């Protein structure tokens, strides 16, 4: 089957088949395949260096990659540059948040905003500044504050909010709970549950089992760049305990 150029109503949100990806000269992913259905939340788990971040970067086009199939709602995105993929409705919340520290919160949100009538590609639900502030009330009081003067947890919220401003249909979240206080993780879980309820598809790379178990239906376990296990969230604990990767210490 070849990818049709036009998004189709039936195709899943994200289809990946046989994905190879590289970091510099080193190949990180080897023939990875995964699917994210519409409105579905999927966890991507594995030890550090297994290739979780690289998978997300390969999807958004920030890592060199090659795939038999890499399609968003049926439309082939394997040859598109990063900005074009983002404009098709993919929001990216990177590891380490990557807030523009020199710019204010409002300016950060503004850069995330989709502009121009030219790209009328179908995306997800529309977001305004007021709506993202309603989702993360902490941001409301600090719109004029430079991003660099926020706490890690607040930056994490801003990073998600900034991605939402582009009206994504699929949100890629890279370790949203890493380095964040447990209490902020709880707020993040609440926000992500609401996003999921609004119809967004989520692909979450995580090492925190609480967050995944609260949000995701299915999980993929990768190890050294290869798919090791896939299945319902319930089965993950048993699968990963033997692999010594996920869960409690």
């Amino acid at each position, binding site marked *: 089957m070849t990818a049709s150029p036009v998004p189709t109503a039936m195709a899943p949100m994200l289809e990946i088949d046989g994905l190879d990806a590289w970091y510099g000269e080193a190949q990180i992913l080897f023939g990875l395949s995964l699917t994210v259905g519409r409105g579905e939340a999927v966890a991507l788990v594995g030890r550090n260096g297994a290739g979780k971040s690289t998978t997300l970067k390969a999807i958004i086009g920030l890592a060199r990659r090659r795939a038999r199939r890499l399609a968003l709602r049926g439309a082939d995105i394997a040859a598109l540059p990063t900005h074009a993929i983002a404009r098709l409705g993919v929001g990216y919340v990177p590891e380490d948040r990557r807030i523009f520290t020199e710019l204010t919160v409002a300016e950060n949100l503004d850069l995330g905003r989709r502009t121009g009538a030219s790209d009328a590609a179908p995306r997800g639900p529309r977001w305004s500044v007021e709506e993202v502030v309603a989702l993360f009330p902490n941001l409301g009081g600090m719109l004029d504050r430079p991003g660099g003067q926020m706490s890690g*947890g607040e930056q994490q919220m801003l990073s998600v909010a900034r991605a939402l401003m582009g009206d994504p249909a699929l949100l890629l979240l890279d370790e949203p709970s890493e380095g*964040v206080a*447990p209490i902020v993780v709880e707020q993040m879980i609440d926000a992500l549950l609401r996003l999921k309820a609004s119809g967004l598809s989520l692909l979450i790379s995580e*090492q925190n089992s609480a967050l995944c178990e609260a949000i995701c239906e299915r999980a993929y376990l990768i190890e050294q760049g290869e798919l090791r296990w896939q299945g319902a969230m319930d089965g993950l604990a048993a699968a990963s305990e033997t*692999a010594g*990767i996920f869960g*409690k*210490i």
Partner: protein
Amino acid sequence: MSAPSPVLAVRGIAKSYGGVRALDGVSFEIAAGELLALIGPNGAGKSTCFNIVNGQLRPDAGTVHILGRDVTGLPPRRIAGLGVGRTFQVAAVFPSMTALENVQMALIAARRGVFGFWHPARRIAREEALALLEQTGMGAQAERPAAALAYGDVKRLELAMALAGEPKLLLMDEPTAGMAAGERREMIALVRRLTRARGLAVLFTEHSMDVVFGHADRAIVLARGRLIADGPVDAVRRDPLVREVYLGGTRPGREARP
């Protein structure tokens, strides 16, 4: 004979940035053989506190004593020379050298042998370096370039390098960050063993509560620049104030699950 002085004694340190109090009158001590966790929300002053102890920042007020000696305001290199080893959140090693050369370099520096211009470094402190690699479980990887090591092994290598100066105090910034659960367990168990065996004092910051509550002897909690709790980990875990500002617990979290 009086009681042995603590390995690290921090008394009333304070630091402000442009009028904002990042740290306000923080005091604590660590004894030899003790594993002390420094936890708290982001922006609570953990990094500031850590960097004052390791010499990267000079406090506005207060003192830092290591083994009874006032080291307040000394640069990091001098503090390293006094028997303080460090590991970083993102492990820092020398990627263009083999694991063995990395540890040899650390040993040479600890013995003030950097300004040697003639004898090949390869033959210096080789046995000691190999022994350190054995202790951290890296013996089999001695001849591999550090750039080719898996991240978990890089962290072990860094630990071996931090131990090269025969430190009395080890400062570890998130020793298990970026590791999967299984690796975290091995890493912290290794640190635990070394602490006991060498009578080391360890101060570490950590975001994984499993690591903190499962392995530390004691925890201190910072919030808005102040120390709000200091005690055995079980007491700190039950502390209502700590639960309120940091741990949360309204949702069935990890510690609530069987």
